[in-house]
């Protein structure tokens, strides 16, 4: 009897499979990878095209049709161009190198110890702090009248008044390097820990590390000789993304960098916003130069890898068991304390400024505390806050939906997305945003004319579209592993009970993915909240968010208001992550009752 049942259900299945071809859900799922590609490639490559054309003199919007090198000629004659290039180059390279080296020292020193997990817990929240907020906090800390100088005054420094300042805005970009390093360090560290948390790889690395210890290798040396060579390939892409970002971002250099001259990315932004529209040609040429700078850095890093590998290959097997491990361990511990202390002081300073009443210079604590700045700021903040939320939620919603559909496509087709798609997903993280966003804006303006009946919302639409380019990759990377790890037998069981693919997706898979979806949503919101350049450019400055306001206020307005905005910038993503982390626990707890 059971055989007969099986046979009849087999026929039912066959009929269902036939029907699937016309099933709306399957059709949407099948189209989703193409939509994903379109949403990533159109802005990046279209945007690049929209920069290349004006860079060579062809800009219909400016009635310029003379194809030639006038943009580049103007660019070469810019005073201080060498300084700008050097600044972009050094800040990008050194911050990435520092963040990478410190991450490795921490990993090596605390590998397989409970401290690594604790450090991870302390540093994880830093990851969701937008760059602008981090820059503001660090700026407050290292300023002449900042927390650091207050703590050593007057008992150590002997200063009566705030000293002449070197930091921030120093001409060498040391403040930028400091800011970027502290911000990228947790990212690289967490990427490494994520790789080491993969069950199979992580176990293999732990065992091999133990085997090296048994062979007499000191723990840190064992990490560098045994774990790192296998771990590094998994870190390469995140590091390249960090390098690309660090060499071309505008938030940190605008808040912490010098103005005479600033980094290349910042000056490009200034040219694009100049009242003199002819500077746009020069700015486009500059954007291409930025592309070259970043590409050169990426290439340099890859060559550096090869050189290091060539010279250190023999060292791996020379049998030397330790390289002053005791001192390095001590150094790493001190470094950890310094880094965490620095971050903690920066955040404390930010919090204090946001509630400070009167606060004379050498004192480390304000004379009085007040909520006045919060009250005034909050009344002015409602519009940017609502904008941040609208854009963040819409962008994240679209990104999550599209990602889930693409991953469902993989499972329905029984194969992973093409190599091409997987590479394209990383493209927005590797191409400097300043190099393609202007082109994107230009293209968006071309299309705007045709849909002008929804005039008021166009800026929002454009902004969401631009945010998607940056939110999609992170949401995709965050959801992929959980989706691929789903036990496929649940779907098969559900299908064998007669559930349509859409029902399997909504009623079986999505509930199982509740927690990872929430985490990916929180990540998407955090990324969207933190976006400065895409918001500013795609909306044409018409949509203000907490982040754009914070950066505007950072250079000029009172420290106290600026602190409130920076704090709000941190609070929003933090709330998102707390909800994402707590909600599943709460729901499952109440389900048990």
């Amino acid at each position, binding site marked *: 009897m059971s055989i007969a049942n099986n046979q009849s259900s087999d026929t039912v299945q066959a009929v269902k499979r036939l029907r699937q071809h016309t099933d709306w859900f399957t059709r949407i799922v099948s189209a989703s990878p193409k939509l994903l590609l379109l949403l990533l490639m159109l802005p990046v490559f279209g945007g690049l095209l929209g920069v290349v054309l004006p860079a060579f003199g062809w800009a219909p919007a400016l009635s310029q049709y003379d194809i030639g090198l006038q943009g580049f000629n103007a660019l070469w004659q810019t005073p201080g161009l060498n300084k700008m290039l050097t600044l972009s180059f050094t800040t990008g390279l050194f911050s990435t190198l520092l963040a990478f080296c410190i991450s490795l020292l921490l990993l090596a020193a605390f590998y397989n110890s409970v401290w690594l997990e604790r450090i991870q817990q302390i540093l994880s929240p830093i990851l969701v702090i937008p760059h602008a907020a981090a820059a503001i906090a660090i700026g407050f800390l290292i300023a002449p009248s900042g927390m650091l100088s207050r703590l050593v005054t007057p008992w150590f420094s002997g200063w009566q008044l705030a000293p002449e300042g070197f930091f921030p805005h120093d001409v060498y970009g040391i403040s930028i390097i400091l800011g970027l390093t502290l911000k990228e360090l947790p990212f690289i560290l967490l990427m490494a820990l994520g790789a080491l948390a993969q069950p199979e790889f992580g176990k293999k690395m732990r*065992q*091999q590390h*133990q*085997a*090296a*210890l*048994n*062979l*007499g*290798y*000191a*723990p840190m040396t*064992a990490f560098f*000789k*045994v774990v790192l*060579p*296998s771990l590094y390939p998994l870190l390469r892409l995140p590091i390249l993304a960090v390098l690309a970002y660090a060499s071309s971002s505008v938030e940190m250099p605008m808040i912490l960098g010098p103005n005479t001259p600033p980094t290349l990315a910042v000056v490009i932004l200034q040219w694009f916003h100049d009242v003199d529209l002819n500077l746009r040609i020069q700015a486009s040429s500059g954007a291409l130069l930025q592309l070259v700078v970043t590409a050169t850095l990426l290439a340099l890093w890859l060559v550096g890898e090869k050189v290091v590998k060539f010279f250190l290959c023999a060292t*791996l*097997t*020379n*049998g*030397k*068991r*330790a390289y002053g491990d005791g001192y390095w361990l001590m150094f790493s511990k001190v470094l950890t304390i310094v880094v965490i202390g620095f971050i903690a002081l920066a955040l404390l300073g930010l919090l204090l400024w946001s509630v400070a009443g009167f606060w004379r210079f050498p004192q480390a604590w304000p004379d009085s505390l007040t909520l006045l700045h919060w009250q005034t700021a909050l009344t002015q903040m409602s519009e940017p806050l609502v904008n941040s939320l609208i854009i963040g939620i819409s962008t994240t919603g679209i990104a999550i939906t599209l990602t889930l559909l693409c991953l469902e496509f993989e499972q329905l087709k029984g194969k992973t997305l093409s190599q091409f798609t997987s590479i394209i997903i990383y493209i927005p993280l590797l191409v400097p945003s300043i190099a393609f966003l202007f082109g994107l804006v230009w293209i968006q303006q071309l299309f705007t004319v045709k849909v002008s009946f929804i005039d008021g919302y166009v800026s929002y639409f454009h902004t969401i579209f631009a945010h998607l380019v940056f939110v999609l990759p992170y949401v995709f990377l965050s959801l992929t592993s959980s989706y691929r790890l789903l036990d496929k037998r649940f779907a098969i069981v559900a299908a064998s009970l007669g559930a349509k693919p859409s029902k399997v997706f909504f009623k079986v898979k999505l509930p199982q993915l509740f927690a990872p979806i929430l985490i990916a949503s929180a990540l998407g919101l955090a990324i969207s909240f933190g976006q400065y350049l895409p918001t500013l450019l795609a909306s044409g400055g018409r949509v203000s968010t907490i982040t754009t306001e914070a950066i505007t206020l950072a250079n000029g307005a009172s420290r106290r208001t600026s602190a409130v905005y920076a704090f709000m910038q941190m609070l929003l993503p933090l709330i998102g992550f707390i909800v994402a982390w707590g909600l599943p626990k709460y729901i499952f707890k109440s389900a048990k009752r």
Partner: protein
Amino acid sequence: MLSSLQIKKLQLFRQNELLLSLNETINGGDILTIMGPSGSGKSSFLNWITGALPQGFHAEGEVWLNNNEITDKPAHLRQVGVLYQDPLLFSHLTVAGNIAFAMPNGNKKQRLEIISDALEQLGLKDLGDRHPDNLSGGQQARVALLRVLLSQPKALLLDEPFSKLDQQLRADTRQLVFKQIRQHQLPVIMVTHDRSDAEAAGGKIITLAQQSNTHVR
């Protein structure tokens, strides 16, 4: 001086449950075999000797190696070699690289000669430049053996070292390992749940029960 590994008044606990108590001296060239079902604390016992007792376990007692106490020394200073059931060869290094990794620092040319001699002795000639992942199970086991022996340990621990090999290979590899151990006059503790391993070792056999009862045969 005859080398020796001494376990003095060991009591090994998981949480507060006594897993095993032991008081043994193993002389160079001798193999002490510990048998028992999984969960009886065999592997934790070896971990304790190497200095890597996992969380949740604790131990009282002392380990002495050649009349030096090593109980509280960090893992990498104990000079105790281990062979696990997985060969745990480093996949970022070649076969020769794996062995060189284990050898003491020294003259490069001499080291290379030692490696090629050793590979030849164990029938692994010309495999030095190969990648360990491409070797057969038996070859990997022999490379792992060479690696641990050329690190010049003062004692050797075998943690189910043959359990992943098939029957014939198992007997051959076992014979090879035991022969090398006698040649090097190393004190050895082997943990296994295979009776033929224990009998082939030809030394004292201690059988652990599931709980804390310890039977000595």
